[in-house]
């Protein structure tokens, strides 16, 4: 069953979107690959984190993109701390 959750982006400055698992998966996969994680491990980690975020979202009809990032980083930290660090840093590097 697909999850229908509204994601408020940039504190409401950009159009609200539905939660897109693929987008989250791609961003976590990219963070894992950025720290030279083998492809298979990166894909498994991204899948596991997306599942955990989907469970967290089930009782929430509306969340901000910032919340998603925080929760995803929290779960990612359990599986791959180095990738989690880079994932967290993405929006606070420049």
């Amino acid at each position, binding site marked *: 069953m697909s999850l229908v959750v509204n994601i408020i982006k940039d504190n409401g400055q950009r159009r609200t979107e539905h939660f897109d698992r693929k987008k989250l998966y791609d961003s976590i996969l990219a*963070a894992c*690959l950025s720290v030279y994680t083998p492809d298979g491990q990166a894909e498994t980690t991204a899948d596991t984190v997306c599942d955990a975020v989907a469970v967290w979202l089930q009782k929430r009809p509306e969340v901000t993109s910032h919340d998603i990032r925080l929760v995803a980083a929290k779960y990612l930290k359990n599986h791959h701390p*180095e990738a989690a660090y*880079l994932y967290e*840093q993405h929006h*606070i*590097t*420049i």
Partner: protein
Amino acid sequence: MSIPVSLAIIALAALIHASFQLSVSVLTLLSAHTIGAKRSRNKLLRLITSFVFGAGLMTALLLSFGSLFLLSIFGANTPQIVWAIACGMSAGVAISIWLFYYRREKGTMLWIPRNVAKYLTDRTQSTKLSAEAFGLGLSSITGEILFIIAPLLISALVLIQLPSLWQLVGIGIYTIISLLSLIIIWVSISQGCSLSRIQKWRESNKSFLQFVAGAGLIVLVFFVYVNEIVVFAIGKV
């Protein structure tokens, strides 16, 4: 001012320029996106090399333009008032670096306009070609103009007093030294150093880098002020 002293001032100004972090942040982010998108190592090297060349070209162009502009207004003999203004402005920039350079948040966010930061972040994500990376290098230097204007201005004022050939040498020295931090990141990435390690180092040493940039600028201002204003005033007495 003798040629060695002039070149030393230019080298110090370039070192201060090298301690500024916007280009380094953009280069780190560009590398993260490129590796994360599973692009080849050769592609990564091409992109980061183009970025460094872009940053170098913009630095050389800004310094040349500044020198030409000042030369066309004042000629080779810059009035003392202009030196005084440059020193005052640079001291102001140094203090603002100490106070504002990094945002008081996690990470390495800088006090540059947020729309510029967002533009650069978005561009790093969509950069796939060497030409785009080159353009990103040009833009990242422009984005930090509020801070690099101080070492650029002092270097330009020193450059216009030099003979033509030494002006070119000065521009070359400034450009190469100002790229040192980018070259270090380039070497680290090309040797397979982890980006998280680079970013962790930058984050944990950001206060030190901020202090060094501000302090370096104060030292530069003091040296130039003594050399150009005080020595001139004493000579008149």
